[in-house]
């Protein structure tokens, strides 16, 4: 407390001191008959020189930062297109460094050189069409090069992936990532968010998951922490139950919603083509770590469960937002295994990473997934250890602690 008082006192005294100094300065100006708008030659010179000093300090800072941190953290690109975009980035950096140094130097040097000198009048020079044409055409032609090269690369990066590309889906939610591999057939099974249950977090569509979603909607969780339609109805219909109006309304809204969702589930079931089950059954679901094999093309598709996230692979020079209700896609070919990159960076603990790069809530900064780029042999070994969705779904225990329903924040109440 006392320290705060002292701070306050110091501030007040400081302001008073400055005020007195300013008064003193003003009185002396008055005595010397100097007005605020008349900048003395001394002040003018001083500021002109300071501008030049500032320019050198600024360039010094820039060069120091470049030398010290220029490529730290970023390192070599680990994908085919990443090498291409890095080349382009360096080229563009070359161009903008040139512009930066040229124009800033002209600015500060002119400011320094043409400071007011007694007796020297400014040169009346209102326009010159030739000069203006030059600095319209020159930037335009430089930009033409930048645009053409940029768009060529952009088309390569965003073009369709080849048929053989390995299909992987990344599923994002507050605040983690889940990967799904397309399995033997290399076709990702269909999904529909309404099928989300604790055994089927990614909401894949199969005959069995449909049934289980319907059952879940009707009966809720076995421990009735989440009420199904039946339980809600019986509670609301029982005349012996007394509810405060807000609770009753909440339950009624919940019941209505679930009834409508249930109808949609039945419609889906009626239209479901059981032949498609196989696409989903052989999918592999993977949390925590994303395993990729080196030198194979990947087609990644993205989903979001709750809000927009962004899948940002810094070292693979790839990024794509994940959008609720929309499947987004991108492709890349990893070229450097994790092991090799660790050697290159001389950092045995280095890992590739997938970060969330779109604000998505309080723990946004923690939402990441380690990415491992394997050699073909390592990748094969890892694949062997995985079980298919079919096996996982059918062996799912009765009621494990569910992560699907884990509230994202402490303020949640209603459950599925």
């Amino acid at each position: 407390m006392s320290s705060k008082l002292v701070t306050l006192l110091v501030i007040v005294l400081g302001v008073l001191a400055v005020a007195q100094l300013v008064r003193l300065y003003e009185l002396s100006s008055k005595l010397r008959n100097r007005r605020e708008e008349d900048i003395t030659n001394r002040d003018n010179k001083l500021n002109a020189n300071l501008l030049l000093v500032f320019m050198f300090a600024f360039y010094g800072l820039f060069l120091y930062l470049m030398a010290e941190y220029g490529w730290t953290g970023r390192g070599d690109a680990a994908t085919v297109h990443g090498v291409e975009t890095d080349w382009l980035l360096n080229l563009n950096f070359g161009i903008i460094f040139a512009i930066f140094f040229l124009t800033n130097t002209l600015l500060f040097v002119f400011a320094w050189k043409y400071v007011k000198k007694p007796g020297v009048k400014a040169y009346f020079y209102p326009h010159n069409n030739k000069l203006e044409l030059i600095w319209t055409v020159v930037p335009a032609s430089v930009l033409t090069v930048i645009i053409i090269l940029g768009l060529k690369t952009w088309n390569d990066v965003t073009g369709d992936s080849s048929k053989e590309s390995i299909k992987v889906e990344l599923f994002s939610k507050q605040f983690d990532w889940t990967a799904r591999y397309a399995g033997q057939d290399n076709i990702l099974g269909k999904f529909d968010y309404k099928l989300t249950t604790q055994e089927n977090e990614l909401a894949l569509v199969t005959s069995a998951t449909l049934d289980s979603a319907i059952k879940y909607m009707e009966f809720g969780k076995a421990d009735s922490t989440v009420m199904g339609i039946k339980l809600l109805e019986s509670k609301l219909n029982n005349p012996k139950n007394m509810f405060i109006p807000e609770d009753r309304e909440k339950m009624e809204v919940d019941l209505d919603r679930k009834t409508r969702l249930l109808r949609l589930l039945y419609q889906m079931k009626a239209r479901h083509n059981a032949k498609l089950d196989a696409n989903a059954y052989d999918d592999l679901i993977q949390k925590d770590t994303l395993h990729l094999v080196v030198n194979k093309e990947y087609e990644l598709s993205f989903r979001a469960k709750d809000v927009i996230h962004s899948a940002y692979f810094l070292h693979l020079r790839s990024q794509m937002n994940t959008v609720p209700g929309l499947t987004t896609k991108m492709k890349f070919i990893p070229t450097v295994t994790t092991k090799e990159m660790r050697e290159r960076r001389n950092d045995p603990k280095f890992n590739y990473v997938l970060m969330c790069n779109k604000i998505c809530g309080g723990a946004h900064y923690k939402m990441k997934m380690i990415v491992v780029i394997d050699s073909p042999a390592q990748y094969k070994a890892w694949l062997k250890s995985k079980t298919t969705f079919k096996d996982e779904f059918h062996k799912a225990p009765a009621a494990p602690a569910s992560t699907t329903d884990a509230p994202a924040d402490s303020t949640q109440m209603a459950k599925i």
Partner: protein
Amino acid sequence: MSALTHDNHGHHSAHDHHDHHEESFVSKYIFSQDHKMIGKQFLITAIFMGLVAMLLSILFRIQLAWPGESSDFLSFFLGETWAPGGILKENMYLGLVTIHGTIMVFFLLTGGLSGTFSNLLIPLQLGARDMASGFLNMISYWLFAISSVIMMISLFVETGPAMAGWTIYPPLSALPQAVEGSGLGMTLWLVSMTLFIAGSLIGSLNYIVTVLNLRTKGMSMTRMPLTVWAFFVTAILGVLSFPVLLSAAVLLMMDRLAGTSFYLSDIIVGGEMLENHGGSPLLYEHLFWFLGHPEVYIVLLPALGLSSEIIATNARKPIFGYRAMIGSILAIGFLSFIVWGHHMFVTGMNPFLGSVFVFTTLLIAIPSAVKVFNYLTTLWKGSIIFTPAMLFAIGLVSTFITGGVTGIILADSALDIAIHDTYFVVAHFHIVMGMSAVFGMFAGVYHWFPKMYGRMLNTRLGFAHFWVTIVGAYGVFFPMHFVGIAGAPRRYYDYSVYGEFDTNSYEMIMDLNVIITVFAIIAAIGQAIFIFNFFYSVYRGPKAVQNPWKSNTLEWTTPVEHVHGNWPGALPEVHRWPYDYSKPGMDEDYVLQTVPLGEGEEEH
């Protein structure tokens, strides 16, 4: 006094048919319809909002530099609710970031910059008695004031202010289950912005009408100072783009309150399965950035206009390429409407559409380059006087260059992929938009303070303020490029997560974050010089003369003491463009616009 001797137009004879009726305190200082007073009201409100936003940034910078360490400063301002034990809460971090951005972009740099100087200078530089509608002008300010108050209130609600970033992308901003700030805080944000937009629209329409209709005799469009050109185009941009933000906000409000699905589809949040289906967050992003990008130029153009005027005056030279400057303002204004997609390269928007936006965006570099080179040529062979305003104007040109060139990288979609939404972007727009616009605003305040308050600011304090600000601000935003190139996403609460996968990046980011925060604190403390100088000089500054900077434009022909209607006699008549500085054959190195062309004299 020389200003008056030049003025041989002889309107002094027609004195005093404006009787100086006594105005009440309320009609003079509060519900004033006088454009000069409204301009000052905008300025003071914006300065207050700017200080709040700056304080918010210091709060979250402390967290970024020393994550997880207890801070008395944080606990003093945020208390146990938001900084228990002096450690910032994750959610409040997002709240601070969001409100900092919102206030800076809209309240300081839109309301403050365009509101202050359009109001002050449009009538004065065009030779008009007041705005086209003084009443609407007053409404415009009061809507701005109310919206400021509501935005402030939102900082104090129990669930916190809006926390979805200043761009408030849904679904995060639509669902209170996703983040607590999307409850009442977001509602207040939307209400505040709705009022802000209404105020801004009324103001802009007023500016446009005034520029088109109330120019004095002889003030053709091509004799208008570049300031007025900039305000004029800014107002047009505002009128065309702000309604789109309003529609985005209204649709968001409907999704939040009326159960519609404009932006929501297939969502499970906080364990609750929502029924919304068929909406698209991309729709919101398109609507938002249709405002959001012109907004950048709404912020920037007035600053460029002010600095054009200040640079010409203090270099004692005509602005080089006056018509090219107008052309580039118009070109920038037009292009700003067809580039919004460059904010959306990696949102899932069709890549072909992305390539169109690459093309249009990079085109903007051409008029921007023209402006920069014209500024440089204006300085060349000038006779430069470094007033504080001039220093800030030169600072603006530097930041416009430094921030502008990195835009070339970001506009190139292929390169944007790897740096989108990183600190590289934060560095880019803080330098090119934040620093430039703030420098423009400071330049304007230093230059036109005598016109606003009839007194002079202290020049030496102005110098000190400039040097602390430019060193501090570059010190904050320049290193951010390197944090960004290392791939640090923006809006992260704690960058020590890097320690889990990359030691080198981790060390670099943590080091640079400390440096950035130290510079931020220095720059923030430096603003105290300005605040002191401003308020001290309002009351105690030395009295100003009529034309302290020996400038050509009409505002310097008005008396120092404000009168209703600006000119005591007849309105001045304009005979020449505003940039006849150091014209050969003239006695003085400036010629007021009211001076008729001499025998055989050519108009530039």
